[in-house]
């Protein structure tokens, strides 16, 4: 896999290191890609004049025009299906799905066309498009606005699936996803949109399809991604006060999985807890558990444990704090692992 080239102009970034929210970092990243490549277009519901319901595309239509930032009719299959045609024509569409639970009208186009055209044509057609999905709960929303559908897409051959967890990754990963010749599902942790962090706009922190160890530790390994990265880091900090050393790995890429750092870590700690908002059955967390037991069988001191959303529909928002994994549930799993 060739490393994406990241020779971006820095006109949108006056200072080399800025403190940005994830939302603003995504906006700046989109802007940088649009400046670098006139074939990059943004399309979706309310992404133009309004700047998107989360303002991720704020100001882009004003600066790049209505032909590069398309306020589309309200139909997700239409957004994805026309983006396929535009991609074949030579464009690099970045589609916004307004909320996670609204991606399903576009599921057919994603699975049947986006994912398979390259294989079907033996590489004669590429579909270089990005589908941005604000995902996950914790924002007190009504039904269909808090889901974590990433496993459906990681299960589908032909797609690549990533999730950012911090502003620096948001800024760089969106550009790297746009540069990728494969279709990329880009999951954004919507409840973390307004968390701030430092972004170095001069250099990408690493290739897109790589996981990253955010905190080293020796007792238990936590593997997570997206909105649960913050939760897991908080849990590790709390555990440290109790004298427990947790390693935290941000997967960043869900398909393909980059599990080499996870295997390396588990061989040292002997214990793994996987933390996701998504329900557990037949999921990314299942896949990690299966791969780790296969690769680290003799290193494991305890079974792989999972802290996840429950195998239920996402509940009414007054119950979401019960549904969502939090610091206490993560630490409870750490305790169980250590006590095994």
């Amino acid at each position: 896999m060739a490393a994406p080239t990241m020779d971006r102009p820095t006109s949108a970034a006056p200072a080399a290191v800025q403190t940005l929210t994830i939302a603003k970092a995504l906006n700046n990243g989109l802007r940088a890609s649009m400046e670098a490549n006139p074939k990059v277009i943004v399309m979706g519901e309310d992404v133009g004049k309004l700047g998107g319901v989360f303002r991720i595309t704020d100001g882009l239509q004003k600066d790049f025009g209505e032909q590069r930032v398309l306020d589309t009719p309200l139909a997700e299959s239409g957004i994805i299906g026309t983006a396929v045609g535009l991609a074949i024509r030579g464009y690099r569409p970045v589609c916004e799905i307004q909320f996670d639970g609204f991606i399903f009208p576009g599921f057919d186009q994603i699975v049947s066309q986006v994912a398979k055209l390259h294989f079907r044509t033996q590489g004669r057609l590429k579909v270089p498009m990005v589908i941005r999905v604000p995902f996950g709960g914790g924002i007190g929303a009504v039904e269909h606005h808090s889901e974590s559908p990433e496993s459906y897409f990681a299960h589908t051959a032909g797609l690549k699936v990533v999730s950012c967890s911090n502003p620096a990754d948001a800024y760089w990963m969106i550009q790297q996803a746009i540069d990728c010749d494969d279709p990329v599902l880009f999951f954004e942790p919507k409840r973390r949109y307004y968390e701030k962090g430092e972004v170095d706009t001069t250099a990408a922190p690493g290739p897109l399809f790589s996981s990253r160890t955010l905190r080293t530790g020796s007792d238990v390994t936590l593997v997570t991604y997206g909105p649960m990265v913050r939760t897991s880091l908080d849990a590790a900090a709390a555990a440290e006060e109790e004298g427990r050393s947790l390693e935290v790995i941000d997967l960043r890429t869900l398909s393909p999985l980059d599990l080499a750092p996870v295997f390396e870590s588990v061989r040292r700690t002997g214990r793994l807890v996987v933390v996701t908002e998504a329900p557990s059955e037949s999921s990314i967390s299942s896949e990690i558990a299966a791969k780790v037991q296969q690769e680290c069988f003799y290193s494991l001191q305890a079974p792989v444990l999972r802290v996840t959303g429950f195998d239920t529909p996402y509940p009414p928002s007054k119950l979401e704090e019960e549904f969502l994994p939090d610091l206490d549930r993560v630490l409870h799993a750490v305790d169980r692992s250590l006590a095994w």
Partner: protein
Amino acid sequence: MSSPEEWTHPGPDAAPATAAKPTAEQVIAGLRATDEGGADLVQLLTPEGERVQHPDFDIDITAEELRGLYRDMVLVRRVDREANALQRKGELGIWVPLLGQEAAQIGAGRALRPEDMAFPSYREHGIAWTRGVKPTDLLGIFRGTDNGTWDPVEHRFHPYTIVIGNQVLNATGYAMGQKFDGKVGDADGEATICFFGDGATSQGDVHEGFVWAAVYDAPLVFFCQNNQWAISEPTERQSRLPLYQRARGYGFPGIRVDGNDVLATLAVTRWALEECRQGNGPILIEAFTYRMDAHTTSDDPSRYRLSDELELWKLKDPIERVKVHLVKQQWADQEFFDSIEAEADRIAVELRDYCVNLPDPPAGRIFSEVYAEGNPVLEAQRDEFLAYHAGFAGGEH
């Protein structure tokens, strides 16, 4: 000609469709329109081979051009019949016959320019022919050796799309791209044509394609071959209204053409593509035709339709009427017809030879070109499988 109202008016027998529930007369009028084509059907060559005039559409056709259209239709019918026979002999897993739809496809296909783009469903063997795709290149899909081997960029002919209606949105996006590229607005402009059937008109993707193409003024001809049957379901199971009249609701013209009349189909499609090049797209064409054979070789039409219907449509055969006209005009003699038959025989032999000698793909094909930039997880799976597979080849198992 440019006003949508002119092209979407209801037939003379139709009562105003204002009531929430249609009257019995409206239903009967709709069914009659579906059975007979209705008063709005554009026809230039009758089933008896008589040239007739149409106030809005006409075409200057030379003897040579008409002989060419005849040749196209005879050859694609022969390809179709030969492939059907290959399936019966077990050489193909399945075949999707185009029998009866030769005029609709050759008329539409020959209206295209090389720089135009075409998006087929999976029955468009005649369109493939007009795009320069070799008939042998269609076989792998149905033999199970590949998913289509032609280059969609070189031929400007998209891969066959099997999920009903998906390609309509893909075509719409492509046509939007033609417009964004500044290739629309004069006689040298580009256009896209998208093929789908009467059954597909019930799909959400087709509705969304109509919406998108309309609001973005896409240079797109929606070409619906209404062959009356979606496997076992007649068109009235898809629509209360004649399909071409749907265009009005989306704000663009809809025209019903005799899909068994190659001249009318050519004339209407040429006009529609020209409108699109000029920036007046999109346009819906409903080619009123008939699926003379089964949906696929796995289907049994005797379970759901009367043979009387087939016999009736045989009298409207798309090829026979051109042959009659060529003879009447003394534009072709027996030597010409014999030469086309001989050419068809040669193509049939080539098709058979190619088909039975088509090798099975190597096992590694399963893993090839799933991704443009690779995937290390998949590559590990491939390597493990190929090592396992090689064990058999070495006689160890």
